[in-house]
């Protein structure tokens, strides 16, 4: 696939390109995952939005233990550890960090940046209530303060015209990701879940205009195509997780190796939520906020989010013809852990087997995970 080759080349060059932009005066704004930071606004400010989402490697998570305790999830620790290690260029380039106040883990990652680095941190208030007007108003006001901070950083006002363009660009990106994702509904998907997630992750760091073009080409190329015929007994699975980081591909690889097929995902952090776009032409800041808070699926840290998430996941199972769920959570992710108990029981009631896996990014857990995944897939196969 030519577009994929070009994207790979772009990703290889991207850190160098960003460094050159930075040296030429362009500001680089990093932000944490979860789809609550209005990246459209960062883009419209003339700064480069970078969604920091590396994970899966035990080293950065462990390095961060010099500054925090082991009870933060490994992903959150890695967000500071990467900066401390300095091996990932993206984490070194950031001129400002936007920390969405979502779960306590990511909140603390922002605190670590705030205390130990010289990068200014903007704490973006996310009320943990997705369906209330008061909460929306609070979030809109927080977004407006972010807008002011970005304008101060770049020295340029964010015009409605620029914001509209940015919204259109990111809407297009989400629509294309959705289109590509939906191709996995086919009996023989033309793209694997691992490839899709890698594409999704690329969209966090790539130049958005380039990314949209790449996605457009990829979509056009695969939309009417079938993949290699899978064996008839390959179980189609859904992946549910609080977080799949850039580099945390262990589970996806192990499922592939065990000859299972993940066909869809419901992931709060790390993977861009592409099912809903920003709508409306009035107050654009409010339109973005409405999409991010009310119109997207709430993460588990939100109040009363269990049932909407269960409904959404049940819908995905049907749409993608999946017969089992892999629930992959990170160690000490408290809200997903609480939810998993209820979720597993509800899935059992629906006759859907669930495999719950947990990771601290430890390289040694690969063998254990492999055995459990192989057994799970085998169990589904013989049902």
């Amino acid at each position, binding site marked *: 696939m030519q577009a994929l080759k070009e994207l790979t080349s772009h990703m290889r060059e991207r850190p160098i390109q960003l460094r050159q932009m930075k040296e030429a005066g362009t500001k680089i704004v990093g932000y944490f995952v979860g789809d609550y930071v209005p990246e459209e606004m960062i883009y419209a400010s003339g700064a480069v939005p970078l969604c920091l989402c590396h994970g899966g490697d035990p080293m950065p998570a462990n390095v961060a233990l*010099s*500054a*925090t*305790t082991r*009870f*933060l999830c490994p992903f959150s620790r890695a967000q500071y550890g990467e900066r401390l290690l300095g091996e990932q260029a993206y984490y070194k380039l950031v001129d400002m960090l936007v920390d969405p*106040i979502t*779960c*306590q*883990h990511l*909140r*603390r990652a922002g*605190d*670590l940046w*705030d*205390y*130990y680095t010289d990068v200014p*941190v903007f*704490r*973006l*208030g*996310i*009320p*943990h*209530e997705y369906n209330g007007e*008061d*909460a929306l108003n*609070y979030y809109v*006001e*927080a977004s407006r303060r972010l807008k002011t901070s970005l304008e101060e950083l770049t020295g340029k006002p964010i015009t409605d015209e620029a914001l509209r363009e940015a919204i259109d660009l990111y809407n297009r990106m989400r629509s294309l990701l959705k289109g590509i994702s939906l191709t996995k509904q086919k009996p023989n998907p033309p793209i694997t879940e691992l490839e899709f997630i890698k594409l999704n992750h690329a969209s966090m760091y790539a130049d958005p205009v380039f990314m949209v073009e790449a996605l457009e080409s990829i979509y056009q190329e695969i939309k009417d195509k079938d993949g290699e015929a899978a064996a008839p007994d390959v179980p189609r699975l859904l992946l549910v997780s609080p977080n799949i980081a850039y580099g945390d591909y262990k589970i996806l690889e192990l499922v592939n190796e065990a000859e299972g097929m993940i066909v869809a995902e419901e992931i709060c952090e790390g993977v861009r939520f592409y099912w809903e776009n920003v709508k409306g032409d009035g107050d654009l800041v409010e339109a973005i906020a409405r999409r991010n808070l009310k119109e997207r699926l709430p993460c*588990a*840290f939100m*109040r*009363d*989010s*269990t*049932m909407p998430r269960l409904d959404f996941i049940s819908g995905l199972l049907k749409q993608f013809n999946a017969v089992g769920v892999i629930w992959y959570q990170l*160690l*000490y992710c*408290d*809200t997903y*852990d*609480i*939810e998993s*108990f*209820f979720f597993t029981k509800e899935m059992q009631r629906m006759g859907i087997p669930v495999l719950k896996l947990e990771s601290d990014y430890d390289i040694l857990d690969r063998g254990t995970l492999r055995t459990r995944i192989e057994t799970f897939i085998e169990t589904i196969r013989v049902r």
Partner: protein
Amino acid sequence: MKKFLELCGFEPAEIDAELPRIQKVFDMFGINQEDIERGKDRINKFWDPELKGLAKIRGLARRELVDTILAREENKINVCASLPSATTDILNAASFHSDNVRATYPDVLVLMVMGYLFDKLDPILEAAEEHFLRPGAAQCSLLQVRLGLNVLGLYPKCDLLMSMGSLCDALPKCDEALGLYFNIPVHYINCCQDRGADWEDLYRSKDFYTNEIKKAQKKVSEVVGFEVDNDKVNEARRIRRDAAIYANNIFDLVVNSDPVPMSAACLQYIRIFRAMPVGRKTQDGLNEANKLLFEEIQERVNRGVGVVEKGAPRILYAPLVSLADPSITNMIEELGIAIPLSEDSILVPDGELRPQMDERGRGEDPWEKVAYALIQRSIEASVPMRIRAITGAVKRYHLDGVLNLFHYSCRYFAGDPLILKDAVEKATGVPVMVLEGDMYDPRFYTAEQLRTRVEAFGEMLRAAKVAHK
């Protein structure tokens, strides 16, 4: 049992009247003779048994727990909540106005009685671990207590569960799950933690929080069947005033005296009772008990009597003293370290004990004052504000060190201890010790495990004190 109740400040007539109800609740919790004997031993060891005011407070906790557990079968409308205390005024207004309403924090009461007194939380914690708060995942033991009570059928099924969403994520998530499993209506009170180093951020949070508390007021009114209006709230505040004033006087005496006249664990009991809603009868008892206790503590101060020697090193204990297990702070005091202050008493910006009420922070609205006071608490503050509050308290109260025994299973408190240590040591020059512990589950972190490290810390503090002289 009668002897035990006497130790809890019960008068003989009260014992005769209350014994059947107390026995019933103790039977439900499986409290047997062995537990009663252990309770007596713990009173003697941890409770300053000669303080009569404290004995009465022990008895009030017992009464409050009994009234709460039996509320459902005594046909009361049952409204439950938990700390932090944003709902205290609302719930007191409702329960003081009508005998038909029981409104309190049941899990806190269970910690105070079954944990602190009897050391019998294990069956409750284990029940929770078999449900959705599994072991090995660092799930909060306070929430395990709440869940375990429901699983064992000990929690009085409530008509409304007020869930505090102003601090951690796990508490509201746990309450949501309780709602789903046990069919309990849940109402959330949220606040956003986007505050940084600027006081301006507090105003913003205060407005949001105020509105949330007002929504809770409406919700409680719907459930109890009468309007919990501001007049009722003000009346409830008037009824509680004496207890609050005497509690504050006790805190002032403790922090300003050398030797420190009262143990940190007992002080925490007073602090929590001041913050939580109780029944009217208990409140009247509390008003009297706090007055008596204040007089007793004043008398101790006059005589120069303390729980540690005069001149002992003084520390700030962060973030808060356990409600379920007095043995850790007791061990620290046994090692000759005084704990005149815990972080949950101090406020931003500079470690004061009384909230700042400026023009913008306090409008006409009484709820604004509640919200503003709550978000000024150091333990609810942002990291930069918390650093400033602890630093301020160390300087203001001439403390020799800080001991941060963070609740390992609380994501809210487990994220920043090393930042606090680094910043406070740099700003004050006093040592900060960080220990990992569990505030509500005595099974994994015991006083004896921590003793060696605290001993070394104590030596360091003493040496620094001598060097300073």
